[in-house]
Each structure stands twice: as structure tokens, then as C-alpha cells.
């Protein structure tokens, strides 16, 4: 039985944690949070690239290190812990994965740019309020040119290359579009998590090329769901640690508030949620790495559990800290905001609950 990270992976984690402690203190996060003009921390991004993090899972022939998705899960968890203000998920879990899964030989050449830090990715799906649905999609490719407005796009200001969901002939599929093209107009939009980048992007006849088939977007989101679950668990565990620490130190009525059952049981519930999320995420990692047929249900379960855990931990982390936890200067609200950001970045937990049920239905049909 080997249902845990390996010794090598724990080593990777220690390295990553040390690196991020040095390079991604809370000041780095607040630097982006407090400055509306900054989409991300460029120094941190450059340092990650230098460490080979964007190259970790890329094939060696494209300048990558050829490591596994489980290794990437380790980095994801550590990035989530420190609220890293960088477009890592958009670039590595989404763009690079799409290229590796479905890119033509020419398209896959872009992987070299990702490995070298010359390319930042994003995925552009939403076009306004409500979960996106193929039937309502307006963005369209006509004569190889993309027309439409995507709102919002996570990391849309920082990105150089976008995956864009658009109508093309009778199909709704992903396309690669270069965001530096003059036909592209983009601007930041105010977001619940100002430490992360959010954009409105208008395409007005932007050259683009399709990537993968109609099923790619769902397969891609399944994969990203597992990796983002680890970011969420990293954040949720950090909230738990901080809250436990505070509950031991903070006194009321002559004793630590952590000796009161109201706080004690709240933190026990937080721990339980985080463990439930972790176990589901491990199964997701196994399904991702092993190419299991169960990936859709495993990924959805990982995401649903992780969204719940992070939201609860962030929300009750503030409550545990009391008044001080509600101030701008305290770090609790950064997790509250990030929990919401990660909840919504690739489809809300609401949508993923439904997706989980559908995946379990499909599995049940298989079993019969």
C-alpha cells in the first residue's frame, strides 16, 4: 500500500517550501494585492521559472524535466499555502497540459517557451454571468479569425497565449490565440481577490488555430481540478495551522480560547474537512497520473471536497481570530479571497457537484 507521496516527493516539497518561504513572503502577496496595476509578481515568476517549476512536467524534448503529475501536485500544494500571486495554474495546469494532450507538433513547440518562462497562459471561457454553456457561447471563429468578448479571464492581463473556447463551424472547441496581436484589447477588472489577475479580453478578428477536439475542454478541466485541489488544500491547511496557533496563544476568560469547545470543535471540523479533501485529492492525483477511467469522478470529488475545505477554513479562520481577523492588516482575508478565487476559477463548486453526480452515473452505468 502506497497511497501517499513518496520520499522523493517529500524531498521536493521541502525544497519548494524553503524556496517559497524565502521568495514568497506575505509582503510579496500584498504587493500585488495593494497595487491594482500589477497582474502578478514578476520577480517571483522569474524565480519559479529559474527553478524549473514551469518545466517540471514538460517532456524533455521541449526543455522540460519530464516529471509526473504527482510531483506537480506537491508544488501546487506549496503554492497554495503561500497564496502565490503568479499565473502558474493558467500556464502549467491548463495551457501546457492542453498542448501536451492535444497539440500538433507545431503547437507543442510552444512548450519550450513555457519551460523557458517566455510564455504565460490563460483559459478564456466565460462570457458574462452564469456558468458557461456551449449553447449560449457567442465567441466565434470566422475564416480563422476570432471574434468576441471574454469576461472574465483569470490571468488574462499577464498572459501571452490564450486557450479560447469559441464556436467554429458546428463545433464548440478550444483555440490558441496570441494575445499580443493588435486585434486584442484587454483591461483589468476589479476582483474579489486582487492578489490575482482578472481581465476582460475582446477579440476583434484575432488570428487563431483550433486545438484538440470538442472533448478537450472537459478533459483539461478534470486535470486542472486535481491540481487546483492541491492549491486549495495548501491554503486550507495554512488557515488551520494559523488558527490553531492563534487559539493556543489568545486568551479569554483566563484561558486559551482553544480550550473552549466552540473553538476546539470548529478547528476539529476544519481538520476533518482538510483530511477529507486531502484523501480525495490523493485519489485524484492517482487517477491523473495513472490515466484511470475514473478521473472524471475522482477529479470532481477532489474539487468539491477541496472547495468546501478551503472555504470553511478561510471563513472560520477569520471567525477564530475574532475582530483582529477582520482587519485588512491581518492575513485571514487573503485566504477568504483566494478561496473564492479558486472556487470560481475553473467552474464553481456548484457546477462541479453536478459534474460529480454525472460522472458517478457514468461509472455506475459502466459497472452494470
Amino acid at each position: 500500500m502506497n497511497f501517499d507521496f513518496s520520499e522523493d516527493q517529500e524531498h521536493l516539497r521541502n525544497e519548494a517550501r524553503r524556496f517559497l518561504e524565502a521568495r514568497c513572503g506575505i509582503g510579496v502577496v500584498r504587493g500585488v494585492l495593494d497595487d491594482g496595476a500589477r497582474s502578478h509578481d514578476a520577480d517571483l515568476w522569474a524565480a519559479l521559472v529559474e527553478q524549473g517549476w514551469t518545466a517540471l512536467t514538460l517532456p524533455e524534448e521541449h526543455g522540460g524535466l519530464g516529471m509526473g503529475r504527482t510531483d506537480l501536485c506537491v508544488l501546487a500544494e506549496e503554492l497554495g499555502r503561500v497564496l502565490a500571486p503568479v499565473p502558474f495554474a493558467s500556464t502549467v495546469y491548463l495551457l501546457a497540459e492542453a498542448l501536451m494532450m492535444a497539440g500538433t507538433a507545431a503547437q507543442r513547440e510552444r512548450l519550450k517557451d513555457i519551460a523557458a518562462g517566455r510564455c504565460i497562459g490563460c483559459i478564456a471561457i466565460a462570457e458574462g454571468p452564469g456558468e458557461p454553456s456551449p449553447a449560449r457561447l457567442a465567441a466565434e471563429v470566422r475564416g480563422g479569425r476570432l471574434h468576441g468578448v471574454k469576461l472574465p479571464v483569470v490571468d488574462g492581463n499577464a498572459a501571452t497565449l490564450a486557450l479560447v473556447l469559441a464556436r467554429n463551424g458546428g463545433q464548440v472547441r478550444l483555440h490558441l490565440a496570441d494575445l499580443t496581436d493588435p486585434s486584442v484589447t484587454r483591461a483589468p477588472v476589479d476582483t474579489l481577490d486582487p492578489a490575482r489577475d482578472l481581465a476582460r479580453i475582446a477579440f476583434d478578428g484575432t488570428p487563431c488555430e483550433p486545438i484538440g477536439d470538442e472533448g478537450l475542454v472537459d478533459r483539461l478541466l478534470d486535470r486542472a481540478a486535481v491540481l487546483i485541489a492541491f492549491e486549495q488544500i495548501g491554503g486550507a491547511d495554512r488557515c488551520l495551522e494559523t488558527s490553531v496557533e492563534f487559539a493556543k496563544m489568545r486568551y479569554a476568560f483566563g484561558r486559551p480560547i482553544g480550550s473552549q469547545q466552540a473553538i476546539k470543535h470548529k478547528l476539529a471540523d476544519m481538520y476533518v474537512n482538510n483530511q477529507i479533501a486531502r484523501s480525495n485529492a490523493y485519489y485524484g492525483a492517482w487517477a491523473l497520473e495513472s490515466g484511470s477511467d475514473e478521473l472524471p469522478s475522482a477529479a470532481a470529488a477532489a474539487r468539491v471536497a477541496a472547495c468546501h475545505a478551503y472555504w470553511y477554513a478561510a471563513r472560520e479562520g477569520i471567525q477564530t481570530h475574532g475582530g483582529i481577523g477582520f482587519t485588512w492588516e491581518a492575513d485571514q482575508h487573503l485566504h477568504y479571497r483566494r478561496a473564492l478565487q479558486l472556487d470560481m476559477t475553473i467552474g464553481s463548486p456548484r457546477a462541479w457537484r453536478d459534474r460529480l453526480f454525472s460522472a458517478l452515473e457514468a461509472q455506475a452505468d459502466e459497472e452494470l
Partner: protein
Amino acid sequence: MDFSDTPEEAAYRARAAAFLDAHAADLPRPTGGEMDRLAVARRWQAIKADHGYACITWPREWGGAGGTAMEQVIFRQEEARRGVPIAFFGIGLGLCLPTVIRYAPAEQRERFVGPAIRGEQVWCQLFSEPAAGSDLAGVRTRAVRDGDDWILNGQKLWTSGAHYSDYGLLIARTDPDLPKHKGLTMFWVDLKAPGIEIRPIHQMSGGVEFNEVFFNDVRISDAQRLGEVGEGWKVAIFALMNERVEGGKDRGLPAARIIAIARATPAGDATLADDGAFRAAFADGYVRMRGVSLTRYRTLTAMSRGQTPGPEASIGKLVMASELQELSRRLIEAQGAYGLIDDEALSMADGTVHHDLLHAPGIRIAGGTDEILRNIIAERVLGLPAEPRVDKDIPFSQAPKGI
């Protein structure tokens, strides 16, 4: 069961309405910021004082109308209906001045009561501290006797309105070697006194409603003491008992607004209003929010029958705050990624829902945390026994303390 006034209440409401119709219509609408709102509120307060509506339940000798709590409620309802300004003076007239009237010498009462009733002077309370939040008696701000004066040093926190207040009610520790509740004394302070520094607190919601107030060797006269030395806790309890029973105000958008938003939010091939999960969750939240509003009518009924409402009113904030948090999250979540957009021009209901989501954590804490409110309900309504107290009978200086 009905919602109608008794004949006496109806008569009072008619009188109040006549007064309001005669005087409130001419009030200017504030156009600027907080200071402008304060100016209008002062003007209105003076008009009310001239006609005996400023402190309806106070005795006539102190400028009140000797009225009932129910009359006060009716007047507030009629004020609210007309949108006149009612903020700024609640803490002063509800909490500080009754304490001054009860504990200050005659000449100070004369000095303070009139201007406060007319809105000419604003008061705030200086009770909470970094280490005295839920555990209010844990105050560490020191008052040290120096001849006929006292020297104050320490920090107060979560002080509403300190930046526009003239005076404050302050509780300080005068003897750390006595047990916690016994070494406290109450004072009033002039907030313009040297050594007082007022800093706004930046909240996670972006708002600035509270202040930190620092006291650095602030010298006050012993004549500013309210009650005996060491009796501060008793005076504080008196002050807080005068706080208006707060049943929790209605929070969040009205049901019709939310339904309109749900109908406008695409979900799958239909809208959010067709989604079983949303319908069920909204229904559950609605009955709780609605239940709190309706519980207030029961409280008013008790008042109308001459009873004094008890601590059961504390269910209001407890329920509303959590429901607001979950409802606003649910609405935002249903927007998909678009829900992340926190821009008044783009997001639903002009950003109200996003504001609620970022504000709700504070509501769950301010004025009694969820946990403290549950304790109050359990102990004071249900009569369950208190927990063992380890710090009650030992000198405060030796009681275990944390951050």
C-alpha cells in the same frame, strides 16, 4: 394575531407622523461624506429636542418625554419610513448619557445632557481593547492616581465614531492586584485631550467604521470619574443594560430582488431560478431570515404588552450574519467565474452582494461573536450552567494572559 397598533399606539403614531410630516420634509439631503451627514443629523436632532422627541423614554426632567419603549419604537419606525438621519447619537444617548446622569455630579449632568440631546456634542464608548473583546473585563488600559488626577495609558479598539466624537466613556484598570472584575473604574474623557491619538481601522471589507484610540500619559481629573474606584464593572453593566435591544436588522437583498437576479442568471439551459439546488437552499435561508424579522414583531408585541424583552433578541444577529454570508456566496457562485468580478458597475445589484460577502465576517464578530451569542442564549435564556472560571478570584496581574 395581527400587526395593528393598540388604540393608544395608533394615537401616538398619528401624533408622531404629524410632527414628522411638519418638520422632516424640509431637511436637506446630505450630498457629501460623513461630516455632511453628521451636520444634517445634528440639525434634525435639535428639531426633535425642541419638540420632545429626542429621548422619548427619558424622564422629562432630563429633556425626555417620559414615554414608553413602544412609543420610541413607533417613532423610529415613522422616522425610518421617511428616511431621516438617525445615526451618530445612538451610543451617546443610549449608553453614555444615561451613565453620566446616573453617576456624574449635578453640575456635569447639567453641562453634558442638554448639548448631547441636541446633537451638539457626540459621545462614544471606549470599552473594547486588543485583549478585551469577548472577555470585556480583561481591559488592561491603566489609570494611575496622581494627586487629584489620573494618568491614562493604553489602547482601546473597535471604537465606533471616535473620530467625530467629543467625549467618550472609558473603562480602565485602576488596581491590577485585585481580581479581574474588581480593579476597574469608569471615567469620561475629552477626546481632544493631549496624549490621545485616534487611528482608523482598515477593515477587510475595505470600509473604515471603527477606530483604535491610544492613550499616552493622558491626564484627567478625578472629577471625571463615574462611580467609585473599583466599581467600574458595575458601571459598565449599567451602561450596557441601557443599550437598545437589537433584534438584528434585516440584512441582504429582499426576496423579490434575489428572485429577479436568479431569473436573470443563466444556468445550464435555463436559469438559476429553475435550479433545484438553488431553490432549496434559498428557501432554507429565506425562512431563517424571515423568521428573524418576524421574531422582532413578537418582541414588539411583548413591549406593547408592557413586558421587557430579554436576551432572546440576540438570535437576530446570530442568524442573519451567517445566512447573509452563505446567501451572498451562493449568489456569487452561481455567476460562475463572473462572480469574481467585484465592480459596482458590472456585478449584480450594484455590488451589494459582493459587499455583503466581504462584510458578513465582521457582522459575525462585532457586537458579540456567534460563539458568545450562543453562550448568552444557552445560559441566560435556557438557564444552562456557566463554564468553570479560572480567572475570577485571583489578582488580575497573576491571571494567565495570552496575546
